[in-house]
C-alpha cells in the first residue's frame, strides 16, 4: 500500500472530509425536505391540532373555546352512545381479527400447492381485496337482503327461517364481519402465502424423516416460522378493525342511523357523526385522541407479548 493511499485511508478525518460529509448531509436533507415539510404540514400539524381541539368546544364556525377535559368527561360519563360504539367495535374486532387470520392462513395453505392453474385460483381469491369498500358493501346489501337476497333464499330452500341481517340487531354485526372477511382475506392470504413459501423444504423433509405427521409439521415447523407474519397481520388487523368505518357507513345508509338499536354504531361512525353532522369538532377530536391512545396501547402490548410466541430465525425466540 502506498503512503498516499495509507494516509487517505487514515481514520483521522481531514477538514476536507468534514466539509464533504456536511455538504452531503445537507444535500440529503434538501432532497427529502419536500417530504418532511409536507409530513409536518399535512400530518404532524393536524395531529397536534387535534390534540389541542380535543380540549376545546369548537364547531369550525366560531373560534375554539378552551374547556379543559370536559369533552373527555362527557365521553366517558355522559354519552351513552360512546359506550355502545366501544362495545360494538370491540365485538367486531374480537371476531373479525382472529377469523380473518384463520381464513387467510387456511386459504394460503390451500393455495400453496403445486397444481395446474394455481395462479388462477390465487387471483380469484385475491380479487375481492381490490373491490372498493363502498361497492363491496352495496353488493353485500343485495346478497344479504332479507327478502330477495341470495343467502336468505338459500336458507328458505333448505327449510330454515330467513335472517334479518342488516335489519336485525343481532345479525347486523355478524353481517359486517362476514363482509370484512370476504374483503380482507385476500390481502392476508397473499402475505401468508409469501411466508409459507419461505419455509425451508429441508426442515419439512427432516421432520418427515423423523416421523412427524402433517399436523405436527404444521405446528412445530410451519407455525413458528411464519409467526412474524402472523404478528404483522395481527397488528394490522387490530388497527384496521378498530377503525372500521366505510362498510358500516354504507350499510347503515348514512351517519345519522346506525342499524336497529345502534347495532352498527362503530366508534369511527360515531366520531364522524359528531364531527360532520353535529359539527362538534372538539368532541370528535377527543374521540380521535382516545382511539389513538388505545391503539398505541394495544399495539405495544401485542408487540411485547410477541416475545413469548414469535420466532425469529436469526435470533430464535426473542
Amino acid at each position, binding site marked *: 500500500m502506498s503512503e498516499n493511499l495509507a494516509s487517505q485511508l487514515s481514520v483521522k478525518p481531514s477538514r*476536507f472530509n468534514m466539509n464533504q460529509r456536511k455538504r452531503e448531509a445537507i444535500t440529503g436533507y*434538501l432532497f427529502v425536505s419536500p417530504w418532511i415539510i409536507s409530513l409536518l404540514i399535512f400530518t404532524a400539524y393536524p395531529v397536534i391540532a387535534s390534540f389541542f381541539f380535543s380540549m376545546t368546544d369548537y*364547531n*369550525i*364556525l366560531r373560534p375554539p373555546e378552551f374547556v379543559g377535559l370536559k369533552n373527555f368527561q362527557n365521553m366517558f360519563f355522559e354519552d351513552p352512545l360512546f359506550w355502545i360504539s366501544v362495545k360494538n367495535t370491540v365485538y367486531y374486532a374480537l371476531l373479525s381479527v382472529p377469523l380473518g387470520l384463520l381464513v387467510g392462513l387456511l386459504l394460503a395453505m390451500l393455495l400453496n400447492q403445486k397444481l395446474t392453474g394455481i395462479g388462477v385460483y390465487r387471483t380469484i381469491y385475491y380479487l375481492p381485496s381490490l373491490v372498493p369498500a363502498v361497492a363491496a358493501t352495496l353488493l353485500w346489501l343485495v346478497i344479504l337482503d332479507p*327478502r330477495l337476497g341470495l343467502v336468505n333464499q338459500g336458507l328458505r330452500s333448505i327449510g330454515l327461517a330467513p335472517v334479518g341481517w342488516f335489519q336485525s340487531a343481532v345479525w347486523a354485526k355478524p353481517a359486517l364481519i362476514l363482509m370484512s372477511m370476504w374483503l380482507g382475506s385476500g390481502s392476508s392470504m397473499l402475505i401468508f402465502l409469501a411466508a409459507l413459501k419461505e419455509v425451508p423444504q429441508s426442515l419439512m423433509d427432516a421432520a418427515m424423516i423423523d416421523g412427524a405427521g402433517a399436523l405436527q409439521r404444521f405446528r412445530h415447523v410451519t407455525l413458528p416460522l411464519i409467526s412474524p407474519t402472523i404478528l404483522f397481520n395481527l397488528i394490522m388487523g387490530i388497527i384496521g378493525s378498530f377503525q372500521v368505518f366505510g362498510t358500516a357507513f354504507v350499510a347503515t345508509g348514512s351517519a345519522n342511523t346506525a342499524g336497529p338499536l345502534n347495532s352498527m354504531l362503530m366508534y369511527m361512525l360515531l366520531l364522524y357523526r359528531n364531527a360532520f*353532522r*353535529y*359539527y362538534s369538532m372538539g368532541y370528535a377530536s377527543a374521540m380521535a385522541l382516545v382511539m389513538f391512545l388505545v391503539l398505541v396501547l394495544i399495539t405495544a402490548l401485542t408487540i411485547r407479548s410477541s416475545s413469548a410466541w414469535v420466532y425469529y430465525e436469526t435470533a430464535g425466540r426473542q
Partner: protein
Amino acid sequence: MEEKNETQTPLNRRQFLKLAGLASSAALLAACAKKATETPAEVATQEAPPAEKVTISWWNQFSTPTCVEVFPKVVQDFMTLNPNITVEFEISGGPPGGGDYMEVLLARIAAGNPPDSITLWSPPSQFGAQGALMAIDSYMESAKVAKKDAFYEGPIKSCQWKGETFGFPASAGDGNVFFNKKHFEEAGLSTKREDFPTTWDGIKDISTKLNKKDDKGTIIRTGFVPWTQRWLDPVWTGLNGGQVFDPQNIKYLIDSENNVELMKYWLTYLDDLYGGDIEAFNVIATWGDVYPTGAFNLGVSSIDQSGAWAVTDAALPFDFEVAKFPVGPKGTKSITGFWPNWFALPKATPHPSEGFLFTEYMSTDGWVTWYINGVMDIPAWKGAAPDIYCKAVETMFGLERAKDFHKFYTDYLNDTATMWTSPVEDFASTTLGQAIDEILHKVKSPEQALKEAQDTCQKKLEETMQSS
C-alpha cells in the same frame, strides 16, 4: 485520490439537483402560505355600486334531470330581470369541485370565502344559531316581495332563531297520507278523500280490514304503518296535542304525556296488527317508502305517508288519493308537516345585496316557475297566483286533478306542526329516532326511552345555547 474539481463545469449534476430541491421546497412553502386577500369584513363593505356588473355564486344540491332542465331557465329569468348580475352555478348535486356539500360549504364559511347564495336541506334556524348564516331581516324590510308575512307561518319560522331570520323557505312540500284506491274498493271502503278516517282509531280499524296474510300467517299486505317517516315525528306528536320542541321557551318536550301516549298507541298498533315483532315485520317489506321498491309502490301496503313532491316523483303505478293525517285522542285538528328547500346567505357573503336579490327571487317567483315546470314541491310563498298548478301533475293526472292537488296542499299548509326550529335539529332528530327504535324493539318503555331522549336533547340544547 484526486480531488474532484467541481468548479470546472458551470453547473454540475449535484449542484443542479441541490437547486431543484431548494426550489421545490420554496414552492411548497409558497403554496402553503396564507393568501394575501381582503378580509371578509373588508370585502363585505366594498360592494359594487348598483350599476356595476357583479358576478355572484349560487351553491345547491339539486341534481335530477328535471332540475338540470328547469333551474337554468329560472336563473336566466332572474338575470334578464337584473342584467347587472351574473349568476355562476352548477346543477351537480354538490359544491363546485365535488365533495360533501355541507362539509365544503361550512369550511368555506369558516374560511371567510363563502358563496353568495346557498340552498339547504337542513333548517336555517339551526345554522343561523351556530353563526353560519347572515341575518336578513333588514333586507326583508325593504324587499319588494319577500316580506316575513309573505310566507306561510310554519315554514318561515323554520328560518328564524331568537327573532332573527336567516333564510327563506322556497318550498314547503307538506306531508299527507296516500292510499291505494283499488285496495279500498276491494275491501269495500269508500275511496273518497272526505271519507278517509279522521282519527287514529279509524285508520287502525280500516288497516285491520286491509291487512292480508297468507296460509302460513305471514303478512302479505298491510293497511297503514304510522312510525316510518322520521321527519314527520313532530306532526304525529302534534296530532295528539303534543310537541317535540317549543321554540318560544327554547325547551324540549319529548317526554310529555301526549308523546308517551303516542308511543303506546304505536306499540298496540304493532302488537294488534303486525305480530308485535318489529324486526320480523321489517323483513317483510320496506315500509314507509312510496318510491319504487317501497311497500306502497309495490302494492304491499295500502296506505302510506309522504310529501307533496311524491305526487310527481314517486311514479305510483296505480290510482291513488291523498288525505289529511288522522287526529289522536288528545288532538284537536289535523295538522301537517313540511320539508322545505331553504335558501340562505352565508355569513360574510361577498355580495349581500345582489345575493339577497337572487335569494329573494328563487324563493318567490323563481320557485313558482320551478313548481309549474318541474315537480310538485309547493311554494312556501303566499304571493303565488292561486290558479297555478304543476304541469307535470296535469300531464300525469289531468288538469282538474292538478288544480285539486294544488288546492289541497296549499290549504293544508295553513295548519302545520311546529318543526325545524331547533338549533340542534339534526342531533334531536337522530336521538328521537333512536328512542322510537328502542320503544318499537321493546327494549325500553315509552316513558323511559322518551325521558332519556328528553334529557339528552335538552342538555345538548343548553350546551349549544351557552356557546352560541
